[in-house]
């Protein structure tokens, strides 16, 4: 009885609370008032350029994001929970490449694959295999591959190199984790799933994935727009010469910019002055290690895990991309 009342009180509070629909509308109205007050002062060219780029990167990612979220929600609703554990080979050495290949089939961007990997470990998939899936899925899935082909017209070898280098890096990390990884480290710190009818699961998963990934996408778009507006082309171009400097520069840029893997090919295409191998490094590192992913992984698996996993992955991604880039591009 008491809990019922508590629930009623809380629900009433929720309707007026800081995260409620009312608060959401209030923020929009407040922004509208501020916006009208500032109108005329906002047309500084630099600010306008930032706003245009910010909206452009966000809007172009929406169809990709919705597709990824829809497929991920359909899987959550319709693929039986033990399915992945059942079809994976028992032996970790074989399960790792198998998981990498599973990543090829499943579309989704990196934000979606972190919770999926957590769910897989929860269901008895060996940690190295789940982590390999986590790394491979956002980098090599069909949506990302098609986006890469579109972003580099006439250079389909870029998409091929991206798939190959990402698979190599993901499998290398999986095997390294099998050999040296701490089995207790990769345990989801908190985990539960949506319950109810299939439609409820579908909708709840879609909402979670869209809002989560979308929020991080906004961070990436804002940062990318800022970099493109604030950093003069000449500075970036001055780092584009030589061999090691552009590779190091774009590897760091991939971590800092944190562009969604479904959109990063277009960013890489815009870095026209850079050598192809450096741009490949950007495409291989980005979906595997970036600031938003490190935050997501620390949230899902714990900070100790993220501290070990991120540097290992970064090294594997950079080396694999350099090797494949030198060979294919």
């Amino acid at each position, binding site marked *: 009885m008491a809990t019922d009342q*508590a*629930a009623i009180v809380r629900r009433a509070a*929720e309707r007026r609370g*800081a*995260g*409620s629909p009312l*608060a*959401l509308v209030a*923020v*929009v109205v407040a922004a*509208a008032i501020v*916006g009208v007050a500032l109108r005329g002062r*906002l047309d500084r060219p*630099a600010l*306008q*350029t930032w*706003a*245009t*780029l*910010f909206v*452009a*990167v966000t*809007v*172009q990612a*929406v*169809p990709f994001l*919705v597709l990824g979220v829809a497929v991920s929600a359909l899987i959550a609703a319709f693929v039986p929970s033990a399915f992945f554990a059942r079809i994976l080979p028992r032996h970790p050495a074989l399960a790792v490449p198998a998981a990498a290949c599973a990543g090829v089939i499943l579309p989704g961007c990196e934000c979606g694959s972190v919770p999926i990997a957590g769910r897989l470990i929860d269901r008895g998939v060996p940690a190295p295999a789940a982590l390999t899936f986590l790394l491979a899925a956002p980098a090599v899935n069909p949506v990302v591959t098609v986006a890469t082909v*579109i*972003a580099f017209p006439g250079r389909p070898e870029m998409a091929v190199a991206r798939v190959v280098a990402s698979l190599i890096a993901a499998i290398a990390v999986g095997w390294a984790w099998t050999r040296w990884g701490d089995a207790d480290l990769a345990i989801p*710190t*908190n*985990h*539960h799933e949506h*319950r*109810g009818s299939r*439609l*409820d699961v579908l*909708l*709840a998963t*879609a*909402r*979670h994935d869209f*809002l*989560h990934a*979308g*929020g*991080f996408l*906004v*961070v990436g*778009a804002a940062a990318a*727009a800022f970099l493109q507006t604030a950093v003069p*082309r000449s500075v970036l171009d001055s780092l584009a010469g030589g061999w090691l400097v552009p590779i190091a520069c774009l590897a760091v840029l991939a971590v800092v910019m944190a562009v969604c893997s479904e*959109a990063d090919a*277009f*960013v890489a*295409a*815009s870095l*026209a002055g850079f050598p192809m191998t450096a741009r490949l490094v950007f495409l291989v590192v980005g979906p595997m290690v970036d600031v938003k992913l490190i935050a997501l992984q620390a*949230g*899902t698996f714990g900070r100790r895990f993220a501290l070990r996993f991120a540097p290992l992955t970064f090294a594997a991604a950079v080396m694999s991309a350099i090797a494949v880039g030198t060979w294919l591009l």
Partner: protein
Amino acid sequence: MAPLTQDAGALLMVMLGGIVTRLAITGAHRRYVKAGLGPYLVVAGVLLVVAGVLLLLRRPATADDNDDDDDDDHGHAAHDDDGHEGSPRVAWLLLAPLVVLVLVAPAPLGSFAVANRTRQPAASAGTAFPLLPAGTTVEMSIREYAERVADRDGASMRDVTVRLVGFVAPGRHGPFALARYQIACCAGDAVASVADVAEWDGPVPSSDTWLAVEGVLEPGRAGATLRPTSFTVIEPPSDPYEE
């Protein structure tokens, strides 16, 4: 910021889906992304609206709610932060593009960004353009113009009048230039093509004014420029970017 409640998350999906759909239906998406992305934006927007409305309607029936209540009882802050029940804190940021789109409705990329972007073509790509028939007026994209200039200093259009449409941008050699962007997918990958204008009588038009200019090529020491024979100020085209 408190995490969004489930209803607020669903409402946000409806609002975002609505604005994306409107953007594509009015054609305003062409300011930011490739025109061909329009139908995909409509599909994505409608899906978001439908999912959001269903979530709002079905909310009382979901088992999630009870689950959520149990967890929230004693303030599992870290738990909420990760947003397992659909509305993580980071979702607040989705309001940013919504607000910018509705309030600012940013203009297409203009003259300010020309200096900051890669130029087309970086160098002559080795294409040799065939000679255009002498004495004719030829309308071409600024990209093609720039490529022809890069090819043997514009030898292929020596005896023709060219017609270009673009916006006014700072010139490298000459009073100003006409510029236009090419995009592969969105404005984030825009590459600028520039046609420098020479010998302009009268006041230089202000930056970002759209002009249709007819002129002839004038070889110069610093590179070929366009000597205008006539020009008209035009409305910004609905398709501001070239393919």
